């Protein structure tokens, strides 16, 4: 049992000095070994031999102990359990999802249970696969952000931002300072709204039903603001290569001020309900622990990694859109459990609101898209006056603009971690290949490490604290 107060102040100093990180005594090596055994289906894993691209889906058939290894693909049958000569009568396989109420969409977890204790867990994904990466190859760069915005549907601005930054880097285009400021404003507000959905579902999944309504209630004005700015509550297609689609609406400062007030008040309320609640603390502390080493090994990023003490935030490490000119701190946890993730995310909400306030105070004037006519359509007035402008506009929106051949990896710090896009151009008007490194995907693959040896009730608590968006996992 840990004292919550020492977590709340676990922020990294801005100079990048190491915060005191102590790996908790969780038997990390043993769980890692179990995980490897499970992944490979043998006691002595030979990573090259059994690690296929399908990883957990493909396991060897007849290994004793590894009951899950008998399942192939997604075909599920546990009839063979009857044939196992064993004293473990209570061993069973439980399919959690894809229609389970708290698997956050269509994640499916196969759990091997003894009683209610989980000895193995296996996330199975793909139920929301829509081939967005392939679709991106058939869309022009201008249409591209319409496509990527649908991946992580809780933080669409980050997808758009990442795609736009990648395209701009290939193009060698600089966006004006106002566009950068708007991008930071929208993405940080988006981080707040995404974290509000997380607190809502985290509360609901451990049984505090009122939290769900509170979280969604406070997210509403943010979405209203998005709608006023971009026309839609989600899937905005607002951040585009070359800038943003439109300027901020009149009176946006009032909206943002009221959002900051409301969310600050709301966060205070949540902390009042949850921070000192013994049941909440019991349910979250020492639950779903992941160590910094395991975070490294599985590519876990974002609040989960920071909750275990990994001081890694792309906004500090590789600043984008001029976010380094604003002051904010990166909250760090120590124990890597669900409670620390809660503390870290709550603190991130506050820091993001701080950034939003700074952006609001220092919003530069000027154009909100680049003056480069290669990527920016001519202004509306010019189209009425000039035939060339009309043709230019027509060409830009039918054929799109060409992007110099090359490849680029661009990453942004989405609310779930490192969202990266690897963009390859062959010089045409459409990407040759777009690969997305979804943060939810990497975080979900670490679920077995966090879940092994816990109870069913911990599964939902841990899953909610990982906060996967299945649109981002499957794409």
């Amino acid at each position, binding site marked *: 049992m840990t004292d919550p107060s020492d977590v709340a102040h676990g922020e990294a100093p801005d100079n990048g000095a190491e915060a005191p990180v102590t790996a908790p005594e969780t038997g990390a090596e043993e769980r890692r070994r179990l995980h490897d055994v499970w992944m490979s289906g043998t006691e002595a894993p030979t990573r090259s031999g059994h690690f296929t691209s399908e990883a957990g889906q493909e396991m060897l058939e007849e290994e004793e102990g590894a009951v899950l290894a008998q399942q192939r693909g997604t075909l599920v049958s546990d009839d063979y359990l009857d044939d196992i000569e064993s004293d473990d009568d209570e061993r069973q396989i*439980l399919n959690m999802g894809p229609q389970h109420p708290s698997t956050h969409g269509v994640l499916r977890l196969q759990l091997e249970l003894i009683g209610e204790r989980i000895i193995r867990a296996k996330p199975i994904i793909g139920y929301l696969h829509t081939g967005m990466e392939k679709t991106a190859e058939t869309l022009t760069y201008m249409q591209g952000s319409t496509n990527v915005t649908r991946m992580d549907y809780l933080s669409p601005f980050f997808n758009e931002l990442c795609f736009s930054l990648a395209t701009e880097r290939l193009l060698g285009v600089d966006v004006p300072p106002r566009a950068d400021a708007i991008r930071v404003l929208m993405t940080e507000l988006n981080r707040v709204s995404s974290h509000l959905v997380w607190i809502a579902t985290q509360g609901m999944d451990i049984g505090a039903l009122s939290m769900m309504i509170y979280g969604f209630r406070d997210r509403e004005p943010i979405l209203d603001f998005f709608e006023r700015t971009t026309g839609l509550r989600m899937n905005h297609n607002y951040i585009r290569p070359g800038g943003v689609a439109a300027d901020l609406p009149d009176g946006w400062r009032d909206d943002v001020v009221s959002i900051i007030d409301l969310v600050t008040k709301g966060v205070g309320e949540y902390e009042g309900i949850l921070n000192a609640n013994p049941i909440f603390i019991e349910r979250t502390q020492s639950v779903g622990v992941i160590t910094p080493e395991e975070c490294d090994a599985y590519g876990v990023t974002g609040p989960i990694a920071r909750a275990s003490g990994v001081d890694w935030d792309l906004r500090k490490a590789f600043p984008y859109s001029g976010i380094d000119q604003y002051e904010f701190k990166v909250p760090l946890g120590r124990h890597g459990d669900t409670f620390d993730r809660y503390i870290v995310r709550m603190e991130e909400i506050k820091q993001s609101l701080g950034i939003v306030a700074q952006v609001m105070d220092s919003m530069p004037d000027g154009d909100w898209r680049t003056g480069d006519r290669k990527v920016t359509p001519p202004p509306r007035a010019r189209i009425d006056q000039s035939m060339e402008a009309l043709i230019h506009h027509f060409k830009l929106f039918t054929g799109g603009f060409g992007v110099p051949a090359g490849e680029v990896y661009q990453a942004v710090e989405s609310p779930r971690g490192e969202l990266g896009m690897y963009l390859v151009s062959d010089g045409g008007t459409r990407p040759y290949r777009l690969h997305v490194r979804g943060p939810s995907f990497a975080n979900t693959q670490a679920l077995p490490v966090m879940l092994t040896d816990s109870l069913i009730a911990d599964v939902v608590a841990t899953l909610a604290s990982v906060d996967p968006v299945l649109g981002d996992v499957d794409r």
Partner: protein
Amino acid sequence: MMGFLEDLLGNVFWQAVIKSVAVLVIILVVALLIVWVERKIVSDMQNRVGPMRAGPFGVLQTLADGLKLLFKESVLPRKIELGAYMAAPIAAMVPAFLIFMTIPIGRPFTVGETVVTFQGADLNVALLFILAMSSMAVYSIVLAGWASGSKYPLLGGVRATAQMISYEAAMGLSLVPVIMFASAQLGGASPALGTMSMSQLVELQQGSFRGFIPGWFIFWLIPSFVIFFISAVAETNRAPFDLVEADQEIVGGYHTEYSGFRFAMFFLAEYINMFNVSAIAVVLFLGGWLGPDFGLPGWIAWAMPLFWFFLKTFILVFIFIWIRATLPRLRYDQLMTLGWKRLIPASLVWLLLFAVVTAWRRFGAPWS
């Protein structure tokens, strides 16, 4: 007319029939009301409006839902054990009704020669009967979980066995001081005097202490009341102890595979049980139907005890609902820890303490 009623109530058999029907009607109406009250209160606490369409303020919503469930197809899953699957919902409803039969909800009145009690049956072992019946209610859940032939209900059933049995112990222990106190109230040095009859327990709480504090048992037995109430929440599978049907974890627990009116029976039984334990707490600790009638005339004075009983009970029901809207759910092992390591030792210590004090007061100091 009056003569006919007199004859009817004078006949033991017809009196019992009338009372049984009355209990059935009251309990169903109350259950429908509680569901509506809960939805309204919870929605108010969560910035929603709750049911609004059916009837004024949506008061008929539960009735509409119930009718809908009544007309729904009852899906029978393939892997069920048919007999037990059918029996489980009935086994849930019956104890709920039987418990309410023993609870006095108003002051007895006379029709002609006959004294009619506002009570289904005045058992002299009512407390034991109630404990036995609430143990029976566990069977319905275990049966439902086992007979559904599905894994989530099975987990719910397994949770139910452990949870309800261990909280049964704490609940029973917390009631022992009540019986001891009642026997001390009945007085005399004769230890043979004592009662477990609900109506007698209510009558013992008449009068007041120093003129303004009512003579309710709660003022002497607060620890018992607290332990009883916590165990009652667990016993009725209400949040934060609703592990048996934790829908975020095991979908619906024992009633996952039930549909139509069989599901409605489980649903109603849960709310009836909530009302029952509140009513038991009111009878044992809060003076039952006792309360001032302000010298009001005629039938109003006659109805005042009913009013006080339902008011007190609904206040406790409100606390149930309030807890549900506030607290997260406990985990399985934490629930067992709370039951076995906190509540049962606490009730044992309280029982010992109370026994010593009572004996001291009755028989004097051991050295005297």
